[in-house]
């Protein structure tokens, strides 16, 4: 965190100053480790084993915050007796369909709900990264469940969880992760000691957790621990996701993703959502508890924002104009489609896949096979010059004279040259003013898209083709200002907030949305950011003029709430758990919820409220159902649906691992998304043969001095000089084994690429003892590319493409490679070296790693 989020890390230092104990788990000793109280080196890709060990430690020693667990989690809920755990299925849950590599979730459901409609089509869910929808709400589940408040029923979630993690002992953690038992126990003790009425603990993660073939399950395991310890919805608790850029949260809220619409509404699917009603109902889930009951109003209001007067209840608000998904249109599928000639044009905005995405060679070969490519960036980045400067030019794979892609480079305005909002990890929107005019031809994204739309509409004006109606009927009338005709960002924010169509009055919040066409709302979760016609995101009231939650600084979605599910900061009766951890509570006299934050509960619903049987929607939420966006009002220790790779996190080895999974026959996530394309490959892992060809584990991440793919830092002298060369960090032990010298050269080989780097031999890396073997890990920064003031080979070139099945994030935090001293070959010899390794590892275009690990002797070759 100190390494990649130094500004946020000031609050960790502040907590430390007040006596907090800081643990840091990382494959390499970083600047964060330097300031932590305890550092735990871990084998990359084994965090579920570590966290599962903590879950077991909590359950075996009954250290959970029992009152909280009983009141607010689904620990007491009874699961179907058809459910079979991975412990009994060799690492695979019940319902697995080997032919598709997905699960039928029927047997995962709560008892009595097996056919209750909770189970989703996991095949389509995987193709469309449906897990992303749950950012703002839980998964559908019928509200009425069977419970055993004693937690003794063998099929209650508590007992199922206990059995699932029974083998995740400190010894197993040591065997899998390479973390000595004493170290593990120190962590487990400190974490559980900071739990209960008086104390909380916080968990912070970043893309070191997400970019794995089991990335979502990493976070699920963290959430299970935090729920068991009563650390959700309370001050000083939570699972904090640090985002990779200034407004990554904003870019999923108002998404730049293929499968989502603003506010996590799903992009319509051609088969599942043929009509507006089918689409809206699929979100609303009739009969379910909670706030999704109003989804139809959010859907209608969004379309009303898109098509204005043309969107009416009679024409389903122009639902027919909406594009439809037909399957996986994620970035990696698209790159492979580019290579196959199925994609003609591509827009790149502030993204540098030639350096920043996994399998850089595939990225560059794909972009070299387009008709046109538009790159909008601050600097001339690798993704704009690959056609003449890529490593593939040296190897003869891209010939500049023959490269068919026409690249249009359009200079972009930086964040200080345009106004708008950033949404940070707390879901806080902060407005920023323009400091200076953009120089020369640089323009904001808002300018670019507004005028692009305007020109397209001008060109199509008078067209009577039905296909052009969607564009021509758009409400595309933003006021512009200044000599550059810059569209007003405030006007866009006002539309995002939503307004009453008849009067133009800005709405006060999403509860005012209607499904009759009387309201328009660009992003329902952001509604309220322009309440009363005031830009709430621009508020900057100093902290000493308000309470410590500082609710008048900026604006947080939803409803300016700073901590989600904060009803859980009070006990079942609505009283604070303790004076020290007081946050939101029930005021008996006034008959309402009150506190330092905006209560995440119906303001006047008393803790004693119990819904009549069969009640759905918000009225179905009981007075002690703190998790109001979940179908059953509870935090899920066990997820009967919503996660396509299992109801409970299970340790699987990374897609590329030098080790056999010590826990199960199943080696890697059986539902991971694989792409059997000739350009893609996976290095062999046990029990396959030849895994020793790539004996070392490599992981990549950031340095403080550079920003992601380097487009904004390798180009700027004061930053470029601070880390001026590509390097690889190795332990002294590996340096001795591989013959590497400090500041000498090394090259690293995977089944995809070979890259070279200067060697930093450092005590900050350590070998790990895993299963009686010594595992060496190397670390690389992924910032370098072939443009800019400082250049170097790209670490991401080493990765292949394997994705998490829930959200289609790539596994780009762990892979296997070989490390050799000296510089890499150049020209044709470079590919020959890679081919030689591929031959020795048995990698051919036809060979695909088995997704389901066969039983011994079944021929996993």
């Amino acid at each position, binding site marked *: 965190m*100190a390494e990649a989020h*130094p*500004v946020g*890390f*000031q609050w960790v*230092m502040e907590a430390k*100053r007040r006596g907090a104990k800081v643990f840091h788990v990382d494959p390499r*000793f970083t*600047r*964060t*480790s*330097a*300031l*932590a*109280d*305890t*550092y735990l*080196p871990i084998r990359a890709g084994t965090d579920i084993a570590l966290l599962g060990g903590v879950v077991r430690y909590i359950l075996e020693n009954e250290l959970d915050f029992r009152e909280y667990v009983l009141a607010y989690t689904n620990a007491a809920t009874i699961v179907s007796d058809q459910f079979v755990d991975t412990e009994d299925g060799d690492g695979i849950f019940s319902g697995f369909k080997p032919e598709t590599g997905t699960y039928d979730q029927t047997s995962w459901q709560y008892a009595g709900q097996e056919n209750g409609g909770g189970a989703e089509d996991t095949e389509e869910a995987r193709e469309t990264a449906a897990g992303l929808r749950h950012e703002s709400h839980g998964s559908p589940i019928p509200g009425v469940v069977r419970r055993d408040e004693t937690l003794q029923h063998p099929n209650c979630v508590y007992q199922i969880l206990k059995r699932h993690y029974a083998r995740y002992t400190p010894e197993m953690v040591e065997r899998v992760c*390479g973390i*000595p038992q*004493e*170290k593990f126990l*120190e962590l487990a003790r400190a974490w559980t000691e900071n739990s209960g009425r008086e104390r909380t603990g916080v968990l912070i993660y970043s893309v070191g957790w997400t970019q794995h073939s089991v990335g979502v399950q990493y976070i699920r395991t963290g959430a299970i621990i935090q729920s068991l310890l009563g650390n959700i919805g309370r001050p000083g608790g939570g699972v904090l996701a640090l985002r990779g850029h200034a407004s990554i949260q904003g870019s999923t809220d108002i998404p730049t993703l293929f499968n989502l619409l603003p506010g996590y509404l799903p992009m319509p699917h051609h088969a599942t959502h043929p009509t507006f009603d089918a689409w809206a109902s699929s979100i609303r889930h009739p009969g379910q508890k909670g706030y999704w009951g109003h989804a139809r109003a959010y859907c209608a209001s969004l379309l009303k924002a898109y098509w204005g007067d043309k969107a009416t209840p009679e024409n389903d608000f122009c639902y027919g104009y909406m594009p439809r998904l037909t399957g996986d249109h994620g970035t990696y599928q698209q790159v492979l489609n580019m290579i196959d000639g199925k994609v003609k044009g591509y827009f790149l905005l502030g993204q540098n896949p030639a350096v920043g995405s996994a399998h850089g060679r595939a990225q560059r070969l794909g972009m070299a096979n387009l008709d046109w490519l538009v790159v909008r960036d601050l600097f001339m980045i690798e993704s704009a010059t690959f056609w003449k400067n890529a490593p593939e030019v040296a190897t003869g794979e891209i010939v500049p004279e023959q490269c068919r892609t026409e690249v249009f480079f359009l200079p972009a305005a930086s964040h200080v040259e345009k106004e708008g909002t950033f949404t940070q990890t707390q879901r806080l929107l902060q407005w920023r003013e323009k400091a200076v005019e953009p120089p020369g031809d640089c323009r904001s994204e808002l300018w670019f898209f507004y005028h692009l739309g305007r020109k397209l509409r001008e060109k199509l004006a008078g067209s009577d083709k039905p296909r052009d109606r969607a564009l021509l009927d758009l409400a595309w009338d933003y006021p512009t200002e200044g000599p550059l005709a810059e569209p007003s960002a405030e006007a866009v924010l006002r539309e995002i907030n939503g307004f009453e169509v008849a009067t133009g009055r800005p709405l006060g919040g999403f509860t005012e949305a209607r499904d009759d066409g009387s309201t328009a709302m660009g992003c329902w979760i952001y509604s309220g950011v322009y309440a009363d016609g005031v830009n709430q995101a621009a508020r900057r009231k100093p902290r000493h003029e308000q309470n410590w939650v500082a609710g008048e600084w900026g604006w947080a979605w939803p409803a300016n709430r700073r901590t989600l599910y904060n009803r859980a900061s009070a006990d079942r009766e609505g009283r604070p758990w303790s004076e020290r951890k007081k946050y939101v509570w029930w005021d008996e006299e006034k008959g309402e919820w009150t506190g330092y934050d905006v209560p995440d509960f119906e303001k006047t619903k008393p803790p004693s409220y119990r819904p009549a049987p069969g009640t759905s929607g918000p009225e179905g939420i009981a007075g002690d159902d703190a998790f109001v966006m979940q179908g059953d009002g509870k935090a899920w220790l066990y997820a009967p649906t919503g996660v396509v790779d299992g109801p409970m996190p299970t340790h699987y080895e990374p897609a590329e691992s030098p080790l056999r999974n010590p826990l199960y026959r199943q080696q890697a996530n059986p539902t991971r998304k694989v792409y059997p394309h000739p350009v893609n490959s996976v290095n062999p892992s046990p029990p396959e043969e030849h895994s020793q060809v790539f004996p070392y584990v490599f992981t990549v991440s950031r*340095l*403080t*001095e550079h920003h992601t793919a380097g487009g904004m830092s390798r180009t700027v*002298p*004061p*930053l*470029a*000089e*601070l*880390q*001026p*060369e590509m*390097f690889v960090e190795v*332990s*002294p*032990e590996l*340096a*001795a084994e591989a013959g590497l*010298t*400090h*500041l000498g050269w090394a090259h690293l080989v995977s089944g995809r690429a070979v890259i070279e780097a*200067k060697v*930093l*031999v*450092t*005590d*900050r890396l*350590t*070998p*790990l*003892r895993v299963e009686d073997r*010594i595992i060496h890990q190397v670390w690389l920064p992924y910032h370098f590319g072939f443009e800019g*003031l*400082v250049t170097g080979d790209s670490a991401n070139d080493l990765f292949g493409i394997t994705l998490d099945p829930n959200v289609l994030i790539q596994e780009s935090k762990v892979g296997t490679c070989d490390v050799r001293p000296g510089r890499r070959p150049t020209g044709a010899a470079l590919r020959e070296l890679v081919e030689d390794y591929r031959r020795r590892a048995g990698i051919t275009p036809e060979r695909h790693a088995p997704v389901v690990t066969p039983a011994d002797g079944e021929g996993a070759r």
Partner: protein
Amino acid sequence: MTPDPNSLYGPLDPAPEAGWSQAPPRMGFFTDTSVCIGCKACEVACKEWNDVPTSGLDLLGMSYDNTGALTANSWRHVAFVEQPRPAGHRTPPFAGNPTDGSVSPASAAVAAGTGNPTGTDPGVPPGDPDAAARMAAGPEFLGMPGSQPPGRTGTADGRSDFRWLMMSDVCKHCTHAACLDVCPTGALFRTEFGTVVVQEDICNGCGYCIPACPYGVIDQRKGDGRAWKCTLCYDRIGAGKTPACAQACPTESIQYGPLEELRERAAARVATLHERGVPEARLYGHDPDDGVGGDGAFFLLLDEPEVYGLPPDPVVTTRDLPKMWKRAGLAALAMAAAAVAAFVGGSS
């Protein structure tokens, strides 16, 4: 006004001494290395605000330090020291891992030779490999009885102990600033805030100040010839603003304020750290009785000053001036007396 008896050496408030009447309180930096996260925001903010040129695109291999030293083109420098020694207040990072001996001293020695050999070019003077290795290994075992056997961390038992020190170095703005005292043009002057600033339009590049500095801070820029160093953002503090580095520091490792207040804060911080089991915390440059009359920019360190590349006992070159003058005077008197005696004796 009578000159202060301490005007050449000893405790002193430098601004009034330099002739400022009604000077504001002396301002300075307190750099608390125990909360430094090595982000180098100070280096970048300094360069951005003061328009300092690049100091070279070379990988030095000195841990994450690619700046190397304070030079004409680097007015803040973050040192990174990897040490195979216990941090006292924390669990050994590599306890139980299958490690061999430490490589930190060896890699520091290799890295020390990678600087530009041109001295003030504006790059980094090549270091002494032996000294670098000693630094990375921590203080030397001097034969005093200790609780640990010598060489504990470099044996086959592995290197379980490890710590990574980071420290943002800067011009010390000495109470008795030798650079200023030797400057023949008056380009270096004492500001009303008690800081020391080079006036770029007066400096003639004579270079006298460079060997005078007991910390090796001030430096000549090649191709320009003039001397450059931290101004403690004279333009910013004059306008009531915080210097760029302190403003950018996310963890308040660099604190700016009235020196008196900073000294109190620093003493309290050291006490807190000692209470929390960090006995190695100590202040550097805070003492008005030290060889330079105390620094305007002082530090909280977690090891001996040498480990960070700081001189253990800096002394202003003017300290010996009175003594030298006295001796010179005595010598002159003696010679005169001898001459007189010769004449007087000769006539008798």
